[in-house]
């Protein structure tokens, strides 16, 4: 007979405590519920307060939305790399943010070359395609090399060695780029056409931001199709379900892992160029913060789940952009944008308290259990 599994408890176990369990209500439960009520109060109360104050007009709310979607799509693109590698190898690839940095740097050299001879203004489409190709080529190469040199020897090691190795790779990439290219900040070129406004629902949006959001969504759809519809994608999913069984079915696990890292590298390269064309600055440490945030986004969406990473990235970006103005302005907190990361990560924790496997993670987690 099958042992009863606590995971099979009736749905809603975390939502409302049943009367019979009130007796077992511990101190920790009280704190957790107080936290939940507090956050709900801040979110609802703050929102009502802000809307009553009427400080921001519709156009400004729309701007917040666009800013959030822009940074969110960068987070989402990076988060995909984390989530795919985790799904296949159960490895948190901490160097992934730095792989994005390598792509952004490669793009920088091509882009400034193009800006100098005017190609970026003359034929923007061609220039952007070449810049993207260069960035993707470099980041993919480095992602695949990282796997081959640093991660493969650790693949069957249990414990924390692979994780520590990933952190080491992150430092290695940062310091190598700092040593080779210098520690100073460089600025991506700023062609005029990127600033031209396009109309969306009657509101103006800078072309570059629209471009980034569209590029991110298109690459995510393509990635989703690759994972769901191709033979290689099917093999990836099989390896992520059960590596040994997949190997016995004749799947070349090494090939699948390399393919996974390559896909992650491609997404990181695209993310690097998108990031750098919106925020302009590239330097050796630029991958760290977005990397950490994207990792948060991947966990939020349910680590291992491809659509979850996308959702998590957009969620985090939107909360960072809209959250402080919407929740904190209303309850009279000054300088709300100082608390941007606090809000984003508090909401992340809240979501995880309600849904420990992340927004879309539960189904997969159960299957594996």
């Amino acid at each position, binding site marked *: 007979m099958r042992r009863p599994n606590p995971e099979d408890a009736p749905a809603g176990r975390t939502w409302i405590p049943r009367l019979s369990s009130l007796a077992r209500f511990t101190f920790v439960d009280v704190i957790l519920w107080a936290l939940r009520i507090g956050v709900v109060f801040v979110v609802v109360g703050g929102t009502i307060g802000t809307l009553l104050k009427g400080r921001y007009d519709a*156009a*400004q709310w729309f701007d917040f939305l666009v*800013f*959030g979607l822009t940074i969110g799509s960068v987070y989402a693109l990076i988060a995909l790399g984390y989530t795919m590698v985790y799904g296949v190898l159960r490895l948190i690839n901490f160097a992934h943010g730095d792989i994005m940095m390598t792509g952004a740097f490669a793009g920088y050299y091509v882009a400034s070359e193009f800006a100098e001879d005017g190609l970026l203004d003359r034929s923007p489409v061609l220039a952007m395609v070449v810049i993207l190709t260069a960035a993707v080529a470099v980041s993919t190469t480095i992602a695949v090399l990282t796997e081959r040199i640093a991660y493969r020897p650790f693949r069957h090691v249990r414990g924390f060695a692979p994780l520590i190795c990933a952190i080491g790779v992150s430092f290695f990439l940062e310091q190598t780029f*700092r040593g080779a290219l210098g*520690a100073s*900040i460089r600025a991506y070129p700023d062609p005029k056409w990127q600033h031209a406004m396009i109309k969306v629902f009657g509101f103006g949006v800078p072309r570059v931001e629209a471009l980034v959001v569209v590029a991110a969504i298109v690459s995510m759809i393509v990635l989703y199709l690759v994972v769901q519809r191709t033979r290689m994608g099917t093999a990836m999913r099989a390896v992520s379900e059960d590596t040994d069984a997949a190997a016995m079915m004749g799947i070349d696990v090494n090939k699948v892992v390399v393919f996974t890292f390559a896909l992650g590298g491609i997404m990181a390269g695209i993310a690097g160029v998108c990031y750098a064309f919106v925020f302009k*600055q590239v*330097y050796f440490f630029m991958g760290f913060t977005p990397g950490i945030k994207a990792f948060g986004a991947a966990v939020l969406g349910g680590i291992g789940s491809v659509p979850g990473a996308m959702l998590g990235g957009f969620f985090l970006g939107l909360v960072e952009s809209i959250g402080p103005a919407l929740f904190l302005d209303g309850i009279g907190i000054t300088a709300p*944008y100082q608390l941007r990361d606090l809000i984003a990560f508090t909401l992340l924790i809240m979501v995880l308290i309600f849904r420990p496997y992340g927004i879309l993670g539960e189904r997969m987690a159960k299957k594996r259990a």
Partner: protein
Amino acid sequence: MTFIKTWAFATLAVAALAGTSAAQAAETKGGVTDDIGVLAIPKGAPIQFGGYWVMSGADSALGIDAKRGVEIAFKDHGGMLLGHPLKLNVEDDLCNAEGGQTAATKLAANPNTAIVLGSACSSAATPAAPILWKAGISDIGTADTAPSLTAPDRKPEYDGFMRTCYSDIDQGAADSKYLYDVLKARKVVTIHDGSPYAQQLALVMADNFKKMGGTVLSVEAVAPTDVDMHPVLTRIATEKPDVIYAPIFVAAGAQLLRQSKEIPGLEKVPLIGSSGQMAPDMIEAARASIVGYRITYPDLSPEAMGKGYPKFVEDYKKAYGEAPISGYHANAYDAAELAMKGIEKVAKTDASGTTYIGRKALRDALRATTFEGVSGPIKCDAYGECAQFKPAVYEFTNGDPKTYKIGDNPKKIWP
């Protein structure tokens, strides 16, 4: 009962520990007695100076410039002091608190460190100065301008700290005057990045601005690593300020500058920065959007500096093949000069050639030393403030980092 005993014992132990750390035992070496310790330097051994500045990252111009100032001061002394060669051990403090703490711990761990110069960042000096003074080492700041470091109410663990740069109390007062009187601004928004330097400077400016009759609409804050400034700027746009005052550092400063021009309602609102952004990296990071950008800064024109400044700049160019890359080289030179004068005053060399330096005596001698420095007159008050401030405003004129030269790009526009 045991409970009370344990507590009494613990309290005593803590008190004893606190006692030893606040005042080290008096020491006598080679006929020199000092309340907190004596450094003995054998014949032929170097006199070791510690230095901690930001040597990497976007703000490295600030630190490298200071280090060069000290090197030139050593060179002017022929690299020798009291028959001992001079040695400078430099640590990178990364311009943040963790870096400052690590750097100070390393320098304090070297028993032969005679004195420490630096930092260029208040964030680093705030945790570092107490660590150094606990080891009996005096610290002369070269560009760390936060008011709290030399405030009359500073804690005793800062007793070993002094600086040859001004306090932001003066910078803040001058900045509010510029905004109110020259730009005719009446409503201002300030932005800081959580660093002691930016936070205190923004606060002092805002206080003075209010006293003059202006309104401070809000005090905003960003993180030094933030890249997306659009939301905070959109929020500021709803307040309709006359001017935005953001005395922060290069990376976040350049993002603010570039993005503020893209926000509806802020296209014409001037953004004013301050001394953390005087670096070629600022142009590199902001590129074309930097043209017309103004920052407040100490006046570096030769007429505002000390008599020796023109010669110093010549020496600098000869030694490093470029004009000074930031603004605090002269302060660093004067810090080294002050340190050497102090050591000369208190050091005693015996017949065997060993030099003895009393640590507390050195601190007292440094405070009592006055001279005409290349950055202006140096004279310390009781809280370690040794420099005077002459305000100026600089405006960037070109988006090519190669054109960076203090005085031309950015060029002085006020007074």
